[in-house]
């Protein structure tokens, strides 16, 4: 009898042991950053990832259409020049190598703010899905950085003076809503620089110039 109860006790402890080993292994596999997030933040993250995945599906649909059209043209023995040209324009417009036009917003900053504050607004416009952004008449492309203390800003070395205007092509409601939401960048900058008005004006048609920078890499080469 005593021997049987001992075996039962050993079995129970071993089961508990197995359970804890699994729990321990699973907790070590989960990302500590995710484990540390609140339910509210996780909800925001789920929404963000879902939006991104939907955009990726959109891109896949576009690419599948493009592949279908190009394959059909090749099969017919037709020219594929038009497809290539359309693809080229799409990439160049997106990357800033060609000017683009469309609905969007103008963000007017009427007073001195430092470079990091302007970067914060540009980052938010990108996050809100802007097709393209310009700082005054300078197209925002990789390598363009707004730096300097308030009143002494430079855009990649070029001094800018007076009021600053950011122009973005994109859905005006989405861009404006993202910038002006409660606790958003304009609210944060309003608290940091209460004397500097920042306004967001929807516009049916804005035009962004092409960049004058050479975007081609000089040192890197394609990885095969």
């Amino acid at each position, binding site marked *: 009898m005593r021997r049987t109860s001992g075996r039962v006790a050993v079995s129970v402890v071993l089961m508990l042991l197995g359970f804890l080993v699994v729990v321990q292994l699973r907790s070590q596999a989960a990302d500590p950053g995710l484990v540390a997030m609140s339910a509210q933040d996780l909800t925001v993250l789920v929404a963000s990832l879902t939006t991104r995945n939907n955009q990726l599906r959109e891109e*896949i649909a576009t690419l599948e259409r493009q592949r279908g059209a190009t394959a059909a043209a090749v099969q017919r023995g037709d020219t594929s020049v038009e497809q290539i040209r359309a693809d080229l324009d799409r990439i160049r417009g997106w990357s800033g190598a060609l000017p683009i036009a469309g609905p969007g917003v103008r963000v007017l900053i009427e007073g001195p703010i430092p470079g990091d504050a302007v970067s914060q607004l540009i980052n938010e416009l990108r996050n809100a899905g802007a097709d393209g952004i310009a700082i005054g008449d300078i197209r925002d492309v990789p390598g363009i950085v707004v730096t300097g203390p308030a009143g002494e800003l430079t855009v990649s070395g070029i001094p800018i003076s007076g009021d600053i205007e950011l122009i973005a092509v994109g859905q005006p409601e989405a861009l404006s809503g993202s910038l002006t939401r409660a606790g958003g960048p304009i609210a944060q900058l309003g608290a940091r620089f209460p004397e500097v008005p920042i306004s967001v004006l929807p516009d049916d048609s804005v035009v962004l110039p092409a960049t004058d920078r050479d975007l081609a890499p000089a040192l890197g080469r394609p990885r095969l």
Partner: protein
Amino acid sequence: MSSFATRIRAIPSWQVTFGLALLALGFLIAAQLASEGPRIRYTSQERTPLVETVLDLQAQQQHLKQQILDLRASIQDLEATGQGSEAVTRELNAQLEQARISSGLVAMTGPGLVIQLSDSTVAVPPDGSEREYLVSGTDVLTVVEELWLAGAEGIAVSGERITVATAVVDIGGSILVNSAYIAGPYQVTAIGPADMFERLTRSAGFVDFIRARAETFGIGVSYAVPESVDLPAYAGLVSLRSGQVAASAAPEAAP
């Protein structure tokens, strides 16, 4: 001594097994409690399914990104076999390849450096804010911008290529780059000139960043200058959804 050995031998084997199992149990409970470090502050029923959803969405995202890269490669192959005016097609394909490279749509390799940012290991003082001791999106953005100023020609953050459309966003002490969840420590990889590191460390902005974040809050900033670094291709949306190209610089097709 011999009576002690006799007593040990007299212990039934199941009791020895039981004792060892209890020891392991105690060790695992302690390990489980210890693994719930200072970052874990939330406990609620709904979190586990949310974490699982995030992991599932991330896995989907990886799959979708690979699909995009495969489709682009397939289109590129088809375009190269086009039958149009040979000279124009060849010229357009060359321009297209260059545009893809310049836009970050092609994986690159070249000389450069890697900066790693990691959360502080300094104990948060009772009156301190825990967020200040974690790497933020602003920290990542600052390093990216300083690398551009130091001459970088291409940058990636923990496997996400920085492009014209890249936003770096904070969510609850974690970071999204290109709307992809990035786990720390964060590696900022840049292709650039041989003196990029010297330029970076001479920059007033980078020195201010080190003072404000590394020296004040203990944010870990380390670097490596390998022989060459790799940047992944951007696998995301490359479409104008609201706007359109205002002009085309592409050459006309031959009649």
